[in-house]
């Protein structure tokens, strides 16, 4: 039946949509990327092809080391998140945990904030003059090892990103039939052995997919290494500094580094695709795994593990919210509580809050419309051109956010299309980055809707356009909105693209928080972070309403 979706795919309204979408991607993604490539390989002075920028990158240890550093961080984080998130998902699926629903909310919340806010909070806790550090040093005479550098980035990103693995694996375990576990038990393989021999291979493709997402996120993260990395420089930091450098940044060199980044992520993406294709199983579970009450030592261990991990990951947020209510004197926290930070925050940064509603808000509308249209043409109108749309729309998935920012800036910083400094360029950046996710979820929704329903509408005299907005869109609505809200949450906490594209007028909350942290205005930063957290919580509550308790997927 799926193959029979060959309704006259001659020229109709959907051909126009396909052309329009291709045009938009051509202008805002393909052209900027080609332009970036041009910047990287053409010598400005001579106008000739040159690999000088690449030689400079690989020639100097300083630059090359940032690449190695990024890899250390990325692989470390990916392994740790898989190692921490998988058991947690298994515990959640297999056992009853006290306060499970609440813990689940905490896990999701801890993943939804901007990583650099976590980094900044950890500095407040464990930094040189952090509360915990000072307590241990002054009261107990113990020196806690430094949190700055590699360790700090690793801790922050791991605690930030393991929830992604948790969500992915929980989803996969829903498809594992309980009778597989029972059969394994029956054949004499149980406990840990069963987990590694039966469960892990079954969810391997999911682990690869989740791992890839963690990999991309941690590779692209800019704020964390910037704040807590100190001397430990990673890729996005280098790109940012080369581009924004006060000595008049070198576009060509930043472009070359961006190209290297894209090549690496593409390579990783292809390997991931290859591995997970080979290990895929078709599973459908009649009997889902039901949580059982754990006994004795197991019970203690799993509770300890869950509470400790989730507690650690939510602690930075809680501490930030706590400090936002502390009394401030200048830039220093003093004993006592007040709402001064909030007053200061609202006085100084009025525009950032409205920008954070407007820019991601408009982006959200554009994303939802595009995602619905693209999902429709790629699912219902498979042909050569819609396949191109399918592929091109996924490209931003593997491009780090700061690179997207740079490509847009280089492409649109001069007439005929002068967009730098506008809200539009920030919207384009957000839309490009977030569309792949929303398209995926819309495609999944659309595939659940039988083609027959649209055919019924058409046989009743409804035109193609009318069928789409009267029948298809309303049926997709819940899924579209749910996907949109998750995009919204990620967009309001986005930093790495915004930090490159913003100007005074288009500052967003995250950019403002980042600036305030850099300036040492910790009180204001904490107040703004709290406002951001409240926005996130409200959005998630709405998501829960709309999706009727549906799954959160990234």
């Amino acid at each position, binding site marked *: 039946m799926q*193959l*029979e979706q*060959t*309704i*006259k795919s001659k020229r109709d309204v959907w051909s126009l949509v396909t052309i329009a979408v291709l045009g938009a991607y051509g202008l805002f993604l393909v052209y900027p990327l080609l332009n970036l490539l041009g910047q990287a390989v053409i010598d400005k002075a001579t106008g000739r092809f040159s690999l000088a920028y690449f030689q400079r990158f690989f020639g100097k240890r300083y630059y090359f080391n940032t690449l190695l550093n990024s890899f250390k961080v990325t692989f470390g984080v990916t392994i740790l998140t898989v190692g921490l998130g998988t058991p947690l998902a298994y515990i959640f699926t297999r056992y009853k945990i006290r306060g499970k629903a609440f813990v689940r909310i905490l896990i999701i919340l801890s993943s939804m904030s901007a990583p650099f806010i976590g980094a900044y909070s950890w500095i407040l806790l464990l930094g040189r003059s952090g509360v915990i550090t000072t307590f241990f040093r002054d009261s107990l005479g113990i020196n806690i090892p430094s949190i700055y550098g590699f360790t700090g980035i690793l801790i922050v990103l791991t605690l930030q990103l393991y929830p992604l693995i948790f969500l992915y694996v929980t989803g996969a375990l829903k498809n594992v039939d309980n009778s597989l576990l029972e059969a394994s038990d029956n054949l004499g393989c149980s406990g840990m052995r069963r987990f590694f021999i039966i469960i892990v291979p079954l969810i391997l493709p999911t682990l690869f997919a989740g791992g890839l997402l963690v990999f991309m996120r941690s590779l692209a993260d800019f704020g964390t290494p910037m704040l807590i990395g100190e001397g430990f420089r990673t890729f996005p930091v280098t790109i940012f500094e080369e581009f924004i450098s006060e000595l008049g940044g070198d576009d060509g060199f930043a472009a070359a580094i961006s190209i290297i980044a894209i090549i690496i992520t593409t390579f990783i993406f292809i390997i991931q695709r290859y591995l997970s294709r080979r290990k895929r199983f078709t599973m459908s579970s009649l009997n889902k795994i039901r949580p059982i009450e754990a006994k004795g030592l197991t019970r203690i261990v799993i509770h300890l593990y869950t509470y400790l991990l989730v507690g650690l990951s939510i602690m930075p947020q809680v501490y930030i919210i706590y400090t936002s209510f502390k009394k401030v004197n200048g830039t220093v926290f003093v004993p006592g509580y007040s709402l001064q930070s909030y007053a200061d925050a609202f006085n100084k940064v009025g525009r950032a809050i409205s920008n954070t509603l407007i820019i991601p808000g408009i982006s959200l509308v554009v994303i939802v419309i595009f995602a619905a249209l693209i999902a429709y043409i790629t699912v219902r109108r498979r042909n050569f051109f819609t396949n191109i749309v399918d592929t091109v729309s996924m490209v931003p998935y593997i491009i780090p956010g700061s690179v997207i920012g740079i490509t847009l800036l280089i492409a649109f910083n001069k007439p005929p299309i002068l967009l730098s400094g506008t809200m539009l360029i920030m919207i384009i950046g957000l839309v490009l980055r977030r569309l792949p996710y929303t398209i995926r979820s819309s495609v999944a929704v659309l595939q659940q809707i*039988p083609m*027959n*329903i649209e*055919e*019924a*509408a*058409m*046989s*009743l*005299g*409804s*035109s193609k356009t*009318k069928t789409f907005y009267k*029948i298809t869109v*309303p*049926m997709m609505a819940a899924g579209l909105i749910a996907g949109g809200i998750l995009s919204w949450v990620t967009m309001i906490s986005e930093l790495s693209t915004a930090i490159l594209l913003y100007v005074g007028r288009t500052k967003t909350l995250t950019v403002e928080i980042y600036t305030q942290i850099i300036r040492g205005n910790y009180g204001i930063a904490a107040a703004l972070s709290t406002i951001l957290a409240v926005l996130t919580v409200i959005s998630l509550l709405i998501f829960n309403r709309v999706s009727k308790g549906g799954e959160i997927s990234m």
Partner: protein
Amino acid sequence: MSVSISIRNAVKKYGENTIIPDLSIDIRDREFFTLLGPSGCGKTTLLRMIAGFNTIEGGDFYFDDRRINDMDVSKRNIGMVFQNYAIFPHYTVRQNVEFGLKNRKLPKAEIEASTNEFLDLMKMLEFKDRMPELLSGGQQQRVALARALVIKPDVLLMDEPLSNLDAKLRLEMRQVIRDLQKEVGITTIYVTHDQEEAMAISDRIAVMKDGIIQHVGTPPEIYHRPSNIFVATFIGRTNLVDAEYSTANKMVTIDGYEFGMDNLSCESDSPVVLSIRPEDFQMSKDTTEGIKSRIADHIFLGLNTHYLVEFPNKQTIEIIHESVMDSSYKTGDTVYLSIKAEKINVFSKDGNRNLIRAA
């Protein structure tokens, strides 16, 4: 306005794959016409070509004298009932039925009157404000029928509309559909793989296989005089038995038993295949006339009893008899079989041709 449908040399291809090589058919005005065949035979494909959901790679499709090949789906004025009903889940029963009328921009009063009329006809008027998820399968089916018919279509197309219902409801809806079709008087094309359903409901049936129509006829025609072995085996149960035909004395010989057949169009002595339905054997213990056989097993099914009987050459055939109290036929018994020659069919050895001359 109901129409006649005529299809000339239709071709359907998916890439290199030819689903329907060359198909022609004529469906009369107000006829209940069924496309019957195993899955993958192209029956649904053909229906969807008529509806406009599939492209047409060759041939001409006509509603009366209008060629519809390039007509948009929404302009063909077709009522379609789908296997999964395709009820719009976000509309109430009434909104579902109104949908087609609204697209035709009819006056409000007329929309309401027609909607009520057809909901009433389908006995669904009391559910008109319900959401579809609160309806049973049979009720959804009724809504789908009302929705398809309310627009006064030229043609009603039905794609296995009963296959998702349970056995009892299937019988009930079968009758509803048949009565409705006669009452509304609309040309109907019905697709099914269930031969009993097809026989019960249709004026005429086209039996399809591999995209080719094997036989078009009324249910009794295709049952009693199937055009080839495929149709004979697909419609009802039958036993295929190898035999020899001799033109000299017009006799057919099975495993040493001879009987006369004078209505065969066969020019020379040749091997043939007989198709003998299980009810067309006579089984007796009181005579030595016929094929001496042994009852290998018998299965009591209430109304009928099925006997598995072994010929001397070890071929096993099936015989159906109405059950009687204290049957004298037991497994292991030796019996003599004779054949109701006027009811059997004789096919060429390759199975493609029925050798019986039309009466």
